[in-house]
């Protein structure tokens, strides 16, 4: 009785040619994480691009001893782009699985080889990263704008001090 090889994980990108799909599958490294497991750690400089296939991760940023969740990623999300494309970048946040998670990892060496070979697949990868970055930038900016608006509103205490001539 022959033992069938495990089916390869589904690719994180659609609309690829058969050649590009095969090339991408060849370079992706699957990784399974349990809830609470750290996928990428602050201070690290490993150059990997990560697609979430299933489950969820969150990005945790430490600021003077306080820890903030600054982003969540679910299936289809891609992250790690700054460390991947910027050789000078040192990761500032942890990326932690918040549920059992399946991820696919593209090492930078594989991407660099594809760029050198002029593989059209790099265009699809870069365009997907840019599209998701644009969406994340918009969401972050909206959150930031809300906080700036809130900062502009004087607190009741400041208003009372001004009313009493005590300054803000």
């Amino acid at each position, binding site marked *: 009785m022959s033992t069938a090889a495990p089916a390869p994980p589904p690719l994180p990108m659609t609309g690829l040619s058969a050649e590009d799909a095969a090339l991408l599958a060849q370079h992706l490294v699957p990784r399974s994480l349990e809830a609470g497991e750290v996928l990428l750690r602050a201070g690290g400089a490993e150059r990997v691009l990560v697609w979430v296939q299933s489950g969820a991760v969150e990005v945790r940023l430490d600021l003077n001893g306080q*820890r903030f969740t600054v982003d969540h990623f679910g299936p289809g999300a891609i992250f790690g782009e700054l460390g991947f494309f910027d050789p000078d970048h040192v990761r500032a946040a942890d990326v932690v699985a918040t549920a059992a998670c399946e991820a696919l990892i593209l090492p930078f060496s594989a991407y660099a080889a594809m760029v050198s070979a002029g593989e059209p697949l790099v265009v699809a990868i*870069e365009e997907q990263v840019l599209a998701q*970055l644009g969406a994340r930038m918009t969401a972050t*900016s909206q*959150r930031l704008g*809300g906080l700036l608006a809130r*900062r502009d509103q004087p607190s009741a205490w400041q208003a009372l001090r001004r009313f009493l001539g005590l300054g803000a």
Partner: protein
Amino acid sequence: MDHRATVLRKVPGLFGIPAPELDELARSFRLIDVLDADLCTEGAAPRALFVLAEGRCEVSRTTPGGQRVRVAQLSPGCLFGHLSLLTEGVRTATVRTVGPARVLELPLDEARALLKNGPLHVTSALRRALIVATARQLAAATHTTAELARSAGLCTPDPARSTQPLPAVQEAEILLADPRW
């Protein structure tokens, strides 16, 4: 080497691009000298992306309360004005040169045409530069958001260091960055 190519070589993300392709990319840009000029104007329609070659620029924006605040200072090698390639809408901040400066300018419609029709080594390099510039800006904005949330008392100190979720989205605004942006 073309001075424009020398400038582009300093742009993060433009690694490993062979000299002929870098020269080709450089020829798409126009080198201009400016003095105390607004290159991007908050609220205006975007028309170009820029790379600061020499001098410095200040990024400012108007808060919802009408206050004008400086949010970043740009140094040579910075790519800016590029978000319009990724998102819809008007400029979200004003970028003004401080004193004399030299910048590379690429009209957005030409940037779009280049990304669509240019040779792969050139377009890939340009996309990498756009990714790094945007990702740095996003990282800085995320950091600032966390700082603002903390200073606004929206996240209280937690001795157990458990995670504090940031507050929900409230209204549409955009941009903030740090000095290295």
